[in-house]
């Protein structure tokens, strides 16, 4: 029974990753459930045993990405390192994913943010990205508590941090950047730190 459950869980992840790739490449509306089933050599009927609709699948993907990012940032939050170093590591995590698994970031920017209607029932507000948002909030809150970051509205700081990273990943996706994304990592981390640090924090 346990083996069967584990196998089912693995199969579910395979579906998520296959659908993620198709949605990111071709867009949400163009991609069909039969195409997703075909990509993982599964019958359409069986696919519906895992996900009751395309919307359901799309929502599960964003939850999967959010959870994966949250676990990585959670590890950074739990390390006894400076805020500056934490920023450097979070930037690295984001850019490594953007370089190695660009479909993850593409999905977030081009599917999740661009097709809010798909996520309006079940993914209201930030619900489906809650694990990721929670870790980012913990990062900011602890930074302010330690007096390393300047106290301000959460979204002012969040927009500067994640908007910056998302913007760079978007430029990379558009093939506008002359260099590899990761080569900007240190400078961008430095910029983010300088913009967010408190007056008394180390340079």
């Amino acid at each position, binding site marked *: 029974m346990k083996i069967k459950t584990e196998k089912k869980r693995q199969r579910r992840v395979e579906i998520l990753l296959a659908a993620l790739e198709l949605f990111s490449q071709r867009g949400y509306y163009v991609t069909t459930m039969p195409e997703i089933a075909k990509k993982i050599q599964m019958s359409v009927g069986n696919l519906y045993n895992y996900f009751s609709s395309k919307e359901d699948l799309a929502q599960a993907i964003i939850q999967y990405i959010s959870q994966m990012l949250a676990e990585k940032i959670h590890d950074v939050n739990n390390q006894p390192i400076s805020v500056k170093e934490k920023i450097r590591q979070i930037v690295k995590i984001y850019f490594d994913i953007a370089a190695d698994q660009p479909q993850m970031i593409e999905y977030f920017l081009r599917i999740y943010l661009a097709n809010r209607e798909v996520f309006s029932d079940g993914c209201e*507000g930030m619900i489906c990205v809650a694990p990721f948002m*929670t870790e980012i909030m*913990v990062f900011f809150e602890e930074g302010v*508590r330690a007096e390393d970051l300047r106290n301000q509205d*959460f*979204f002012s700081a969040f927009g500067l941090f994640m908007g910056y990273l998302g913007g760079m990943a978007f430029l990379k996706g558009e093939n506008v950047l002359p260099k590899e994304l990761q080569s900007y990592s240190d400078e961008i981390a430095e910029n983010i730190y300088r913009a967010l640090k408190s007056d008394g924090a180390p340079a």
Partner: protein
Amino acid sequence: MARRPRVLWLQGVTCNGDSHSFLNASEMPQILEKFHFVYHPLFETGYTLESIAKEYFDIDILVIEGGLLKKGFKRAGVESFELIERYASIAKQIVCAGNCASFGGISRKMDRNVTGAAFCEQEPTGLLASYSSKIINLPGCPIHPQWLVYALEMNRHGQTIELDEFRRPVELYGYTVHEGCTRNEYFEWKIDAKGFGVREGCLFYEHGCQGPFTHGSCNKILWGGVSSKTRAGMPCIGCTEPGFPSTNLFETKTLMSIPAKMPLGVPKRAYLTMTGIAKAFKIERLEKKKF
């Protein structure tokens, strides 16, 4: 008829607030029948403070109101602390009425030499700490009259009062002020009151309410039998806790928009996840003001 317990009410550095609050106890006529008040500063008793200072009276309960200051606060010709300490040694039970007597309170904010009886804020180093074992703390600013009635009656009936780490009765201080707050639905869905004295909305998110992490029964044993601060649209200011008062009582301290103090015992990640979900929904019924 059994002998009435003898109560002596002495004051340290105080504003008289706890005395005034006590006078509002609905059972006051019965209390005066059941207890023998040797001395109280605000109502007529058989003795004056001068005679209390001059002679040694046998008492059962010493009620202390106000913070303790070892020197420089004379009453009836003697240092108030000297008098309080004398009767602390005689009394079988010491009841600290209000935050000043319990932890130092507002008096301590004005003079750092002031302490509570058993405690000096969180530390068990009050000027009467050696009598801790017979001290019951009833912090509040002021004390709730019903809390004092409870302690007196428990004593009269020979009942043991279970106490917490700050020697507060668990029966009265075992839960938070948040319990029984009529604004809890607004707290759940993260809808702020956006003002004081209004009927709808929660006062925790922006207006400094300390109810979710303050021990007390203000919303269960109502004030005057009818209301409480939060019910009237004023934030709980944490007056039952050691260290009271903090600063900026009417605004919530936030770190990047996140409350600096979490509801009691709630891990930060759990709080952030729950509130993140709650605020994703717009509940029309709660958003709309009725008045």
